[in-house]
């Protein structure tokens, strides 16, 4: 069952080989059976899922052409879902039930997708290992002692283990791509503004972007088709027209120019990972692509720039969690100040508090120019590097992360080392371009993701490139033994 793609399931649903209710029951059963080991879900919405499945079966029977109709999926727990607990994996929102629906989840509901539940994540999307969750760490289905990556670790683990057909994630500095890489699935971070942020709980507003996490590029295309496009509720959502993301999946790659930034293959990149990436590039050459070495000279600066901009925006975005209108309020506050400080001090985890403080400091009087403005200037340099590169090449390729998934607890004592691991993903968010991670092989038994970066709004091209690779290889069809055994 875990090998089934959205397209093949959609066919089976229409051929009445299976009903959405049966499919949903199967997935709910798998979640019950396996998620005790993974902890990939925070909330499983059995009853809602079955009701939606029933409705989807009717929709299909009445001739609906929506590919997502009746397909059981999961949402990262930072998308507000009307009437369903939405926690952001934080004690701060342990009891928050939004009376409204995010645009992303709303559009998938409109497409007839079935919501199995809400997936675990790093608290407020801050982290690269999914160890910063009020609801406990998520395990990597390929090796339960390793992290699934973060912050969309629950979504990645659930997809890899076959606990949903596909899932939504969000990516602020690599939070879709890195867990996709660590868990051996396909994930797409669209162009900033391609997908509405309305109803998505913000980490860093100018970097956050929602996207699909699935078993294949083709499945990602189906989900992107549903969620992408203009939304009047988000001022930063682009009015650029969407494309038909499945129409050109099969387009040949002859003449495609791939840029390989030398900075992506320098010191710090694990040798086995490097080999996997080089082999993948050779595969593309076989498909007719040309390779060109390029340079993204300011890559190293993406780390400091990101770790100023993201915490600065976060420090302000997270001020609304104050114990007044929703969420956690401390017991017996002795006065207003005590209510603020203890509600926030007790409600937020350590990593979140740390980033709030970094941002508060970076924006404070006397430091703003040296930190925030400087970071924004560097952000422009990083963007210009990509703009220049895309004058010469069609897509850029490299690793997603310097290593494969690391051990749970291995880096918790050295958070800076963990920040440095984001080196290959952060600059993409700073520039706002789209990028994917697709399975490209294994190193020491763990999946390795290939990162494919594209120009602004070139999602269709990225999906085409990824799909052609997946037709030529079978890395994306590999399953962890945990999933196979079930």
């Amino acid at each position, binding site marked *: 069952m875990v090998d089934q793609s959205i397209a093949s399931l959609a066919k089976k649903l229409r051929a009445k080989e299976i009903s959405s209710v049966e499919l949903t029951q199967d997935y709910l059963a798998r979640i019950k059976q396996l998620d005790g080991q993974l902890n990939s879900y925070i909330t499983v919405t059995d009853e809602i899922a079955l009701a939606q499945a029933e409705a989807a079966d009717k929709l299909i029977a009445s001739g609906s052409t929506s590919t997502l109709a009746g397909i059981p999926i999961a949402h990262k727990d930072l998308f507000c879902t009307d009437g369903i607990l939405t926690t952001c994996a934080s004690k701060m929102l342990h009891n928050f039930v939004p009376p409204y629906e995010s645009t992303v989840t709303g559009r998938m509901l409109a497409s007839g997708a079935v919501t199995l539940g809400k997936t675990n994540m790093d608290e407020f999307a801050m982290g690269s290992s999914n160890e910063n969750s009020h609801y406990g760490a998520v395990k990597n289905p390929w090796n339960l002692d390793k992290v699934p990556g973060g912050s969309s670790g629950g979504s990645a683990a659930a997809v890899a283990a076959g606990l949903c057909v596909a899932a939504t994630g969000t990516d602020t500095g690599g939070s879709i791509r890195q867990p996709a890489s660590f868990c051996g699935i396909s994930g797409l971070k669209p162009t*900033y503004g391609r997908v509405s942020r309305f109803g998505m709980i913000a980490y860093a507003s100018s970097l956050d972007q929602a996207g699909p996490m699935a078993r294949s590029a083709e499945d990602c295309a189906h989900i992107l088709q549903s969620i992408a496009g203009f939304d009047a509720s988000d001022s930063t959502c682009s009015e650029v027209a969407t494309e038909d993301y499945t129409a050109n999946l099969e387009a040949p790659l002859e003449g495609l120019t791939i840029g390989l930034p030398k900075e992506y293959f320098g010191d710090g990149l694990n040798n086995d990972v490097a080999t996997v990436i080089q082999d993948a590039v050779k595969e593309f050459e076989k498909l007719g692509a040309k390779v060109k070495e390029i340079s993204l000279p300011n890559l190293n600066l993406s780390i400091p720039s990101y770790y100023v901009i993201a915490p600065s925006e976060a420090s302000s975005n997270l001020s609304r969690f104050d114990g007044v209108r929703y969420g956690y309020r401390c017991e017996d506050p002795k006065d*207003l100040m005590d209510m603020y400080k203890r509600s926030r001090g007790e409600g937020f985890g350590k990593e979140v508090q740390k980033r709030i403080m970094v941002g508060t400091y970076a924006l404070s009087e006397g430091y703003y120019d040296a930190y925030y403005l400087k970071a924004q200037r560097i952000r422009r340099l990083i963007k210009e590097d990509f703009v220049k590169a895309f004058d010469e090449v069609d897509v850029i390729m490299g690793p997603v992360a310097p290593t494969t998934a690391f051990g749970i607890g291995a880096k918790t004592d050295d958070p800076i080392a963990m920040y440095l691991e984001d080196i290959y993903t952060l600059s993409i968010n700073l520039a706002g371009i789209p990028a994917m991670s697709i399975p490209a092989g294994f190193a020491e038994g763990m999946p390795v993701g290939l990162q494919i970066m594209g120009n602004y709004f070139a999602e269709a091209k990225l999906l085409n490139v990824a799909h052609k690779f997946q037709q030529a290889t079978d890395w994306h069809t590999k399953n962890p033994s945990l999933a196979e055994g079930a």
Partner: protein
Amino acid sequence: MSLEKQDVLKIAHLARLSLNDNDAEQYQHSLTSVLDLVEQMQSVDTNGVEPLSHPLEAKQRLRDDVVTEENRREAFLANAPQTEAGLFLVPKVID
């Protein structure tokens, strides 16, 4: 760049986070190491480079001035820790 404990307490106060002594010391170290990491930025000359706030550099869209929302007070208040008479309640505010 090294932060003093006093700095950490001041930042925590601005951010309305309660810290005990032990926390403050921990954060003193972890914040200092982030600031050290960030310090590399100062080695780059960015003279004449305009700050970039938004990747797309698009312009603000305008909404027509029409009332589109209806009263959903009860739905919103349902999430509040404490309410009375349609109001959110907080410990007494003293000006």
